[in-house]
């Protein structure tokens, strides 16, 4: 016997073939408009997160009486603004009071000294004139002022948060419900499928806008969270249907059968093996849903039933423009913002659809 060992043949490393998601991203990336849409959404996210640092009247960071504070966080949650400023009778006006009470104090200010909730008075900020109601855009008020003298730019910047949060939270709720129910219905089939499908049909019949109007009448203090919950709890049907369809298709594929024959627990199969493969087409109705939710919020605010005042919202600014038709800046800026945001989401949704749907992508590529 030849005891001499055969030299091990060195294997040539083959580049790993791209995974499904990588493939989707590769295809998505090639398209110009979906990418522009994605970039715009990214820009909005940045604006929303850094809104208090972009426009505001509270310092982003300041040192006052030897301690560091972040008063601008008060825009996100009022209790995050340290009570020391209230005790020291700042009353919302920082620039003058900071140095008056502590000559050594320093502060980093937002890019634009304007407030989304109130009119800036004279002598608040050196060289900044008092805001008057309905001023046209100038170098102090980039987008003009509204009928109460509040800066429209500041309102727009802070309103971005409302617009994005409404879209993400409501569609987040819808996605959780829709994917779970759709997955269960599609995977198990039979009477569970029938039951869930009927439920979907029932929920589809509920008119969201009217439900929200009814809620506003019933709830003592309706907030934007109520609105998001309703949009979420009624908007999951499309997602559920698509998920169910995907699961019906994938349930009988080889890898699922293999997983079942290996004795893997059902929840693991559903959520670890099937779901990631079913996700791509489901993302499409979610992106469209976000756009729809933003429109619902804006139209409710436009009708005066939206986020309760003084919450800044693009729709509210539009509403002010309705009563002051000659003040073009009240209509143009929020209108364009809503248009571009909704358009971006729709472009991203469409891009996703083209990148994930084999019929669309192969036909066009």
């Amino acid at each position: 016997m030849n005891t001499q060992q055969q030299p091990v043949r060195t294997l040539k490393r083959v580049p790993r073939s791209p995974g499904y998601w990588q493939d989707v991203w590769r295809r998505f990336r090639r398209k110009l408009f979906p990418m522009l849409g994605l970039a715009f959404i990214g820009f909005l996210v940045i604006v929303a997160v850094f809104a208090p640092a972009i426009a505001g009247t509270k310092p982003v960071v300041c040192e006052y009486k030897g301690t560091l504070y972040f008063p601008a966080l008060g825009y996100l949650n009022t209790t995050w603004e340290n009570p020391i400023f209230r005790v020291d009778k700042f009353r919302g006006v920082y620039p003058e009071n900071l140095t008056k009470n502590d000559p050594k104090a320093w502060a980093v200010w937002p890019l634009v000294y304007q407030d989304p909730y109130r009119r800036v008075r004279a002598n608040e900020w050196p060289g900044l004139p008092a805001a008057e109601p309905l001023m046209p855009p100038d170098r102090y008020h980039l987008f003009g002022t509204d009928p109460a003298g509040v800066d429209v730019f500041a309102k727009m910047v802070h309103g971005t948060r409302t617009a994005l949060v409404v879209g993400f939270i409501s569609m987040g709720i819808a996605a959780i419900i829709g994917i779970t129910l759709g997955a269960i219905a599609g995977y198990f089939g039979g009477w569970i499928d029938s039951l869930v499908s009927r439920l979907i049909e029932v929920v589809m019949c509920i008119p969201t806008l009217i439900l929200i109007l009814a809620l506003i009448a019933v709830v003592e203090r309706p907030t934007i969270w109520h609105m998001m919950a309703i949009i979420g709890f009624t908007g999951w049907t499309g997602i559920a249907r698509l998920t169910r369809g995907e699961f019906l298709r994938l349930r009988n594929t080889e890898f699922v059968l293999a997983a079942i024959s290996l004795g893997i627990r059902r929840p693991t199969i559903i959520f670890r093996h099937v779901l990631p493969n079913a996700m791509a087409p489901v993302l499409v109705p979610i992106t469209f849903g976000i756009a729809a939710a933003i429109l619902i919020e804006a139209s409710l605010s436009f009708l005066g039933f939206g986020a309760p005042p003084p919450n800044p919202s693009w729709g509210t600014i539009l509403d002010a423009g309705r009563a002051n038709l000659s003040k073009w800046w009240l209509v143009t800026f929020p209108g364009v913002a809503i248009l571009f945001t909704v358009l971006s989401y729709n472009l991203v949704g469409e891009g996703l659809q083209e990148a994930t749907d084999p019929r669309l992508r192969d036909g066009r590529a």
Partner: protein
Amino acid sequence: MSYWFRLGTLLLVVPILTTGCSKKEEAKTPAPTEKSAPSVETAKPVPAQAETPKTPSLEPFTPPPLSEVDAKAEWIDGPIVDSLDRLTKYLAEHPPIATIEEVSSLRNDSKEANEKILSAYSQQPKAPGDVNWNATWNRCIQGDINSVNPVLISSTSDFDFQGATSVGLIGFDWEMRPFAASEIVKSWQTSKDRLVDKFVLRDDLTWSDGKPVTAHDIAFSFQVIMDDNVPIRAVRSGTDELRWVHAYDDHTVVFFHKAAAATNVWNISFPILPKHIFETSYKSDPSLVTSKEHVAFESKPVVSGSYEVASRKAQNEIVLKRRESYYMHNGKEVRDKPYFETIRFRVVTDSNTALLGLKSGDVDEMTLSAEQWRQQTNGEDFYKKNTKIRDVEWTSFHVIWNMKSDKAPFFSDLKVRQAMSYAVDYDELLKKILYDLYEPCAGPFYKGAWMAPKDYPSPYKQDLDKAEELLDAAGWKDSDGDGIRDKDGKVFEFSLLYRSDPLLERYCNVIRESLDKIGVRCNLSPLEFTVLQQRLNEHQFDAAFGGWGSGADPFTTKNIYGTGEGRNYGSYSNPEVDKLFREAELEFDREKRGEIYGKIHLILYADQPYTWLYWRTAFYGINKDLRGYFMSPRGPYHYGPGSSAIWRAQ
């Protein structure tokens, strides 16, 4: 802007005519037992309450013979006034500070300019030749009238329409002094015990169909208004304070009151129906609008006033023409000839459309919004044909604090209410948001009015330090460092309700911002008007923004500040105030009554059940050819002579 008009409806100066009710009708009135019988017999289980017989609003009453009334009464004569005559005399004693020529090119951009224009345009003609007797007055109303029937009035449009087409026994002038209208009344006497009023009517006034206006029309109208089957909207309040109204002959009508009160005179002025038209028809159709006869009446009403309906297009326009049989009788002029040949009411719901109409000359006058006053009426396009005037009305706006709210137990404490009043940024509200066109308010009665105190309190000014001191003293401190005051674990956070409206939202936002500065969280809560009204009625609120219009007499404020009264939404209670209200009702001397109401004003100011904010200003755009806009605390129309003082120059 909100519920102010409800008070206004009580005491409108609608001049109206009348007829009485005969004994026959009284006999026909069903007895209470007859009415309730069916509900007892129904087979279905009926809630216990429904079984108890419903008492009709009007209890039967047998009026004593006239001789007995006369013997007991010890009559005191009441004033009979020709209101236009009174106004003309007043204007003669107070010469204008500017002439029409002087103000014709003047822009109304300052207080002085406004006073000059007001003065010049308030004048009456110096000679009959000054008046264009063939003129048309194009008025606009915001909504179509509900009905031409005078007892069914409820909206401002209805009142404007009735003001031109009907007469009434009692009117009041620009100082809210009541009098009997000389157009219809020959004599007015009040008994010494103040329980009976006797009127003798003139015999030269006819309905537009030629039948005379008699005392029976008045007594009949009373029966109709008090009939529970008739859906009366506004005019039953006040009228229901009357015990009975009886016509002794065609010209003599006597009003029996339930109690002796200085306010009795206001209950007499209900609208008058033509008895010969409604006598039989109203029993078969108590709605007064659906039967064939009543539909016919709606399109061609029989009226008692100076104008009659020439044509009417629903939701579009109503054209009135001067009624010759009103001012002429047997070939003689017995009343003032109305100034216009035609009055056209156009229904214009959108105020921008109305303003376009005013600028083009299609409309002769309109009520402007503050925005329109400030921004859209300054150019040559407006001043070419028109001018504008403004005046303060006795309509105040305020925040009501609910002193018995479970969720917001803060406002029962006087210190807290004072702190609220000190916190509000009045400068921002009045100077910026309200364009410096409104006056600050410091209590229920307008400064200088006969019922306001002589030592009138000064309006609150913002003083945040004082507000914080008061809150600290009341025990509301920020103990947990979250920026909001609290006490015994209860956080100082409440909802401020207001009617959903972008203007009101701006006002309320000033209050929210002010309170935010002193560590009080105020959440804005816009509501639909009927929901707001319901919440106020049920006392289910913490604080609310609202306004009260002024009645012609201050006794109506008892309903607002008296303990347990109907519109005392904030559950304010002060035994001293209650006592003074009772005293004032029994005091017949106007000056002494004024002093009592002045005391009430001062107590209310000290107690701050409301944070008073401002008096409303009314803005009018008028065609330069029109004259006679003399302002009362209720505007240029709703008093005596009001709209009948307006004329068009040659």
